[in-house]
């Protein structure tokens, strides 16, 4: 097991999410940056649905009460073991008593800490992902003790894995045209084609709001399904990118939909980062 000595800014347990319960109004949740989290699990030969820790901006401080193997991917928060810097994107040996710590992120926003075997927290509606009203805890706090699944086959940490993973801080976000894109005027479409957009400080696991607004007279839509990655345009002109914890239906026009890799890219964006849309 592991003990959380300090949760960092905002850390939670996440996995692939709840894929079969949206019709009960249950959001998918799960890791924001699925590319980074998948890599973290792959490096350890963990089953792909293994739960891990997602950390935002400032990473946690963790005491390992077992010897194990871990991997850290995503944003670079200068991870250290017993105050010695360790490599990211690699399987790392941990000895019982080791303390893993982080600093403020240098680029990107979220990092992933995978542990050999995966975190063994409560499985609710098929997932261990934290979500208010579903899981017991919304986020990790100081003093939390987490159990780890034991794996029969131990990974040899010196096993080679070719990772040509370069941290991706692309600004270009690929989008599908949403169901209500057709109602935009030519001038409004032009705005989306050419404008550079700024991430506002209103960003979290539920949604990212952009600073720029677009005045519009679009009608509200009859409540319809939405997905993480759906971009809504509100009557007030706000542009909202729905993310993993978003509600399953919405009444605002859906003008775009991020493709899968774009959701991962947005997950690493911070306040004041710039993005530009590219149409699929």
């Amino acid at each position, binding site marked *: 097991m592991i003990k959380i000595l300090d949760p960092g800014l905002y850390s939670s347990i996440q996995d692939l999410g709840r*894929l*079969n*319960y*949206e*019709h*009960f*109004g*249950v*959001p998918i949740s799960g890791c924001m940056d699925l590319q980074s989290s998948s890599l973290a699990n792959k490096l350890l030969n963990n089953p792909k649905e293994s739960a891990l820790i997602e950390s935002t901006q400032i990473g946690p401080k963790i005491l390992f009460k077992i010897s194990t193997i871990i991997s850290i991917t995503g944003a670079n928060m200068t991870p250290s073991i017993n105050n010695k810097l360790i490599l990211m994107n690699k399987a790392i040996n941990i000895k019982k008593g080791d303390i893993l710590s982080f600093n403020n992120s240098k680029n990107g926003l979220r990092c992933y800490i995978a542990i050999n075997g995966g975190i063994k927290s409560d499985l*609710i*509606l098929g997932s261990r992902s934290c979500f208010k*009203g*579903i*899981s017991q805890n919304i986020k990790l706090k100081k003093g939390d003790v987490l159990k780890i699944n034991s794996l029969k086959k131990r990974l040899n940490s010196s096993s080679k894995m070719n990772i040509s993973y370069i941290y991706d801080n692309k600004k270009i976000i690929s989008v*599908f045209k*949403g*169901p209500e894109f057709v109602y935009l005027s030519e001038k409004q479409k032009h705005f989306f084609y050419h404008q550079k957009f700024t991430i506002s400080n209103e960003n979290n696991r539920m949604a990212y709001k952009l600073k720029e607004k677009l005045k519009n007279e679009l009608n509200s839509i*009859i*409540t*319809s*399904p939405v*997905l993480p*990655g759906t971009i809504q345009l509100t009557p007030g002109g706000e542009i909202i990118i729905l993310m993993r914890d978003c*509600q*399953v*239906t919405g009444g605002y026009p859906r003008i775009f*939909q*991020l*493709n*899968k890799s774009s959701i991962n890219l947005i997950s690493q964006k911070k306040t004041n980062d710039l993005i530009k849309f590219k149409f699929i």
Partner: protein
Amino acid sequence: MKEKDINLSFLLYNENSILIGWTKIINESTLKEILIYKNKLSKIKSIQNTINAYNSLLIKYKSEIKSFNEEVKNLKGLYKEKVKTQEIKMSKHWKIPVCYGKKYAPDIYLVSKKLKLSSSEIIKLHSSKKYTLYFIGFLPGFIYLGQLDSKLRIPRKQNPSKIYMAGSIGIADYQTGIYPNDSPGGWNIIGNSPLTYFDPFNKAPCFANSGDTIEFYSINEKEYNQTKHLSNNNLNFIKELND
């Protein structure tokens, strides 16, 4: 034989999903069509999940769609297939106890003033109708019920409230619903139900499904407290009450 015209729209929503749209009107016959189709789709192994709202259905596939046009052809074909009567899912009818007393209805004065109705008229209009459960959305277990009597139509609040008590009964536009947990919200609250409507520890976490029907009945404060005590946060209680 003349081919039945399919009056549906198909859109590639993302790499794994297709959104199907029916005509933009909210009514029970459209919902019925959607639910029959949803039931047909539930047998297809390549589909992860389907989510319906008032007049649309989002189909999520387990893998990326190779050819959108091919898949639309398949979906249209499936839509035209005749349905065996045995395959039509039976819907359930639920009776839900509500205490409409002032203590549980923070917005009753607001509603009464705006609609120029007395609170007893509001209660009568709300509790004398059989509602259709269109879908569950917004929050885990939040059921969208329609349609309210035209005399009860009031828009959402301009400024949403920070917190509504679990069990709050809200009305907005042509809809009514129950807030299953303490949460923020924008509908107008006219009562409270003492039962549990959502339990994440239950494999079927919501008590009801799309297509079910619901009616509300009035209880007094004493009955409210008794029922709350008996129900004891158990999702199964409402099922027992309705058996």
